[in-house]
């Protein structure tokens, strides 16, 4: 129950434990998860050999080229070991004259007054683009034979000297996109700053958008910045993400407040409880959250969270004492596996059904009290109590859960849960066949009933159902499945020999 969450933690613990000796850690086969491919791994060897074969052709081709061209690296310096770049470089010299290969498409950003033409029809047919012309400038510093096809490769240092030049906002954004050094300090008027931001947004490069936002955050007052962001949703979302990542909680809260996003504000503050480990401090913090501007619905949930932790603290203290005292039988027989603190409500209910089932409604740990306080649905309560009592093999409690009296005073079994699900829960808690068959018998659907009865070896039910269906063939077949000479076999024989039954087959 509720183990999923723990899983990741477990794995982390495992990793930490293994970290003691780095050298061993990386090379030993025990901790393969973090080693590089082991040499003796047959699979990788297989792969390796295939790869080797595949590479032969290419390598041969390369060798031909290698002698002809001077070796260059990403920064334009010769490097011996990297032959591929040489080949790429050589190929790059065979430039083709071409039109702009692909048309620009509208990506739905608010257009910027100055760049309207970028979205016009004519831009689909334009020759060398603005970007292209501009590129020529930097190209002149740059021997084109050094251009490589792996993107984002570094340019020679000489290029850095032109960052002092007078770039327009648009050009600046372009340069930033290419990872070149720029200075934003010269954009001092609000208009320039916003133009910079809008160009960044229209370039769809989150990296640049955030860079501009960092600059704006530094050089604009909060009031002005927030106001401008309100009408720029894309930039706003980048800013929120940036503040989240840098854990600038205070500014983020201010932003939400300025934008009137009170629910986001409340949730963000509530989120802080996750980093409080002391349960009393957490409880007090949750209490302080109650006044936050949540939606009505969420406000009730946060109230529940507070109430629950408050209760868990009380229950935990009492039960720990009872367990240590060694006087309470149930804690001796079934020692608690974990603390109940910070568990979900349903887990708490289960715990109370397990350890405190018969307590009067007045106590904090009484299941009935919990049911009342947290408005637990009938079905939820039923499922939880059923699992807990079945786990304890308290079959009479299980039985009592189903019993209701009708107006004639007869008891009959009722369940808010379908009976095949009940059987499933009981069986998972290893209920004996004797208990199971009572509930299998209550399953409505005949096919489902038979398959469940067969699965759980409730022979009587199978036999009776076939009898009621007057299915002689099935009964005959089932005879082979029961034990030789058993009571069940005798019962089947009796039925088969019974002249009164009108078999359908």
């Amino acid at each position, binding site marked *: *129950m*509720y183990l*999923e969450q723990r899983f990741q933690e477990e794995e982390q613990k495992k990793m930490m434990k293994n970290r003691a000796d780095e050298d061993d850690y*990386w*090379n030993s086969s025990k901790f*393969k998860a973090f080693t590089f491919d082991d040499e003796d791994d*047959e*699979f990788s060897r*297989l*792969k390796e050999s295939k790869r080797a074969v*595949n590479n032969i052709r*290419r390598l041969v081709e390369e060798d031909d080229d290698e002698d002809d061209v001077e070796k260059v690296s990403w920064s334009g310096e010769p*490097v011996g*070991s*990297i*032959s*591929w*770049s040489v080949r790429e470089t050589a190929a*790059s010299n*065979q430039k*083709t004259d071409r039109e*702009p*290969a692909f048309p620009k*498409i509208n*990506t739905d950003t*608010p*257009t910027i007054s100055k760049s309207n033409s970028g979205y016009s029809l004519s831009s689909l047919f334009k020759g060398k683009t603005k970007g*292209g012309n501009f590129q020529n400038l930097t190209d002149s510093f740059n021997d084109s034979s050094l*251009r490589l*096809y*792996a*993107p984002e*490769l*570094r340019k020679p240092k000489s290029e850095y000297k032109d960052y002092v030049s007078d770039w327009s906002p648009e050009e600046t954004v372009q340069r930033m*996109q290419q*990872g070149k050094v720029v200075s934003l300090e010269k954009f001092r008027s609000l208009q320039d700053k916003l133009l910079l931001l809008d160009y960044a947004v229209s370039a*769809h*490069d*989150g*990296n640049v958008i*955030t*860079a501009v936002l*960092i600059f704006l955050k530094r050089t604009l007052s909060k009031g002005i910045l927030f106001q401008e962001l309100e*009408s720029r*949703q894309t930039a706003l979302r*980048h800013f*929120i993400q940036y503040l989240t990542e840098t854990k600038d909680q205070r500014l983020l809260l201010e932003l939400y407040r300025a934008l009137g996003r009170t629910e986001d504000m409340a949730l963000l503050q509530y*989120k802080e409880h*996750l980093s409080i480990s002391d349960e009393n401090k957490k409880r007090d913090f949750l209490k302080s959250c109650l006044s936050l501007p949540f939606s009505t*619905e969420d406000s009730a*949930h*946060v109230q529940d*969270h507070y109430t*629950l932790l408050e209760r868990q603290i009380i229950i935990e203290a009492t039960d720990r004492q009872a367990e240590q005292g060694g006087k309470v039988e149930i804690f001796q027989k079934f020692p608690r596996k974990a603390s109940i603190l910070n568990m*979900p*409500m349903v887990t708490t209910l289960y715990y109370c059904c397990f350890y405190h089932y018969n307590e009067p409604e007045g106590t904090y740990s009484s299941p009935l009290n919990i049911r009342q306080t947290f408005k637990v649905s009938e079905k*939820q309560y039923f499922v*939880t109590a059923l*699992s807990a009592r079945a786990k304890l093999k308290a079959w009479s409690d299980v039985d009592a859960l189903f019993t209701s009296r009708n107006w004639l005073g007869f008891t009959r079994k009722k369940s808010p849960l379908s009976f095949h699900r009940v059987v499933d*829960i009981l069986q998972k808690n290893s209920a004996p066949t004797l208990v199971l068959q009572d509930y299998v018998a209550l399953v409505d659907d005949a096919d489902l009933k038979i398959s469940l009865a067969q699965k759980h070896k409730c022979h009587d039910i199978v036999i009776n159902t076939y009898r009621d269906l007057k299915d002689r063939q099935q009964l005959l077949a089932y005879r082979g499945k029961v034990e030789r000479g058993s009571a069940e076999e005798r019962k089947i024989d009796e039925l088969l020999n019974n002249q009164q039954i009108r078999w359908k087959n």
Partner: protein
Amino acid sequence: MAHSIRRDSPELPDFSLLKRLARDQLIYLLEQLPGKKDLFIEADLMSPLDRIANVSTLKQHEVDKLYKVEYKPIISTADQLCFLIRPRIKTVKWICDVANADKAAGKLRRYKIIFTPQKFYACEAVLEEQGIIGDVTTDEWSFYLLPLDDDIISLELPEFFRDNFLAGDQRWVRTAGSALHLLHSLYGPFSKIYGIGRCSKMAYESWREQVEEGEQRARQAEIGKVFLIDRDVDFVTPLCSQVVYEGLVDDIFRIKCGCVEFGPDVTSSDKSIKVMLNSQDRVFNEIRNEHFSNVFGFLSQKARNLQTAYDKRRGMDIKQMKTFVSEELKGLKQEHRLLSLHIGASESIMKKKTKQDFQELLKTEHSLLEGFEIRECISFIEEHINRQVSMIESLRLLCLLSITENGLLPKDYRSFKAQYLQSYGVDHLLTFANLRQLGLLVEQQPGETLTVMESKVGKLVNDKTAGKLTDAFSSLAKKSNFRALSRRLNLVPKSDEEYDLRVPRDMAYIFSGAYVPLSCKLIEQVLERDGWTGLEEVTRLLNGHEFAVTGSNGVDLRGKGDAQRIILVMFLGGCTFSEISALRFLGREKGYKFIVVTTAITSSSRLIEALLDNQV
């Protein structure tokens, strides 16, 4: 494979070049820091690194010790530290702490940060703020693409999904564009690009700009067409339980970077084994795309064949035996080992699936897809939650219900939320807020309120502002329209027809014949029509953002022929193994070869986990 194979399928390009490119660049970067150094590697970069280099490669370039980034004080004694990391603020802050702690202790070291696949200004801003620019040098390792198999290439950026779709942060758009640019430079020129989704459009634009910035050399195209698709175009498909072998193995054992760890229950020994799952594994290659119900039969047939092959050695004379041992035995042993692993895995899958009423779960999913017996589905999900079965599974079903039904009735939404928080913790309030923001789990909007509001606003203000407002509303206004799409594209075959899973007739086989994955259906339709013509209603239901563009190279005849039938499909935000299986099927049927490029391999669990917010 039981179905017919078109023999004229073109050959796939060789992507091992990508690995060598990445490895060579890494070596170069390491050489930039001469002398002995300790290397710290970000945890989620270790598996990708494993695929392209090994310890001895690193050692050859004077890497002394290897550490994993753990956000704790370090114990290295080296004079030079090198950090190989993703551009994340948290990691950079940690490095700053390390450097500043050294400074305080009077320890002198050289530091180098290698960001991959690129650095972000925000990270450099942290270095500046922490006062360690100058102490630290930075570099970029353009490791954009990791080939996981002959036809799968991954960017290994699982955070792409949350950053882009939940947070609305476009930091990876250019990365996607650069990845595409790299493929274009090496295997292009592409002649035709189709796409759907906002991010796809932006990635296309970024790619196009990068193409214009650089030069294109004349070369024979190996990849002709490209299809870009956003994950949020189709959330239904990744939320369904996978029943094709490879998908199932991923759902249950989690394939990590093309490698899976089988535990003792599979290996029937006391140790776990790590296995590479790709086309090199002959047994796996034959069953990976099969519906699980066929796998057992296939494996037992294979086992019988193996037995016969082994049995041949009976009655052999010495010479024959010698040939047998030298030529066949090794192969047989290998096959034997693989076979026993996959049989073990299948058994383990069976055990796990029967334990959790898999049949009933699938029935519920199929009903949701069909829009049939919704109340029964609702009570099934409710019981799932009541019994605290699985936190992730419950959310998955809730999201599936919400998308297929275009939102939950307000009373159902409230009741589900309350019960969910009771079962799995109130902390999940934050998770619900995320799911709502993404449109995965929402209340039904009464009528068309939103559109009315939008148009009113539109009349009041000028167009420019209206555009911005629509942008702001887009996440709210986003409707799944699944039912209408399903009808129009015929995604759910009539349930009264028999579906022979051994002889699949369409891509629906990957979901037991119950549903044709929307994402793959779109790809099929667009390729068939060579564009979006005739799909206007569909794109309207998908909230638009479709495009189809032809490059000037399109008319170039050099690209004609095989390359035009090699289609690169790029999933922005992740794709599942089931979708890859479906595309492989489509490729076999139509004589295409698909290459799947994805920001990461995803699955229902990964998708949901990315949206959880119940932990710090």
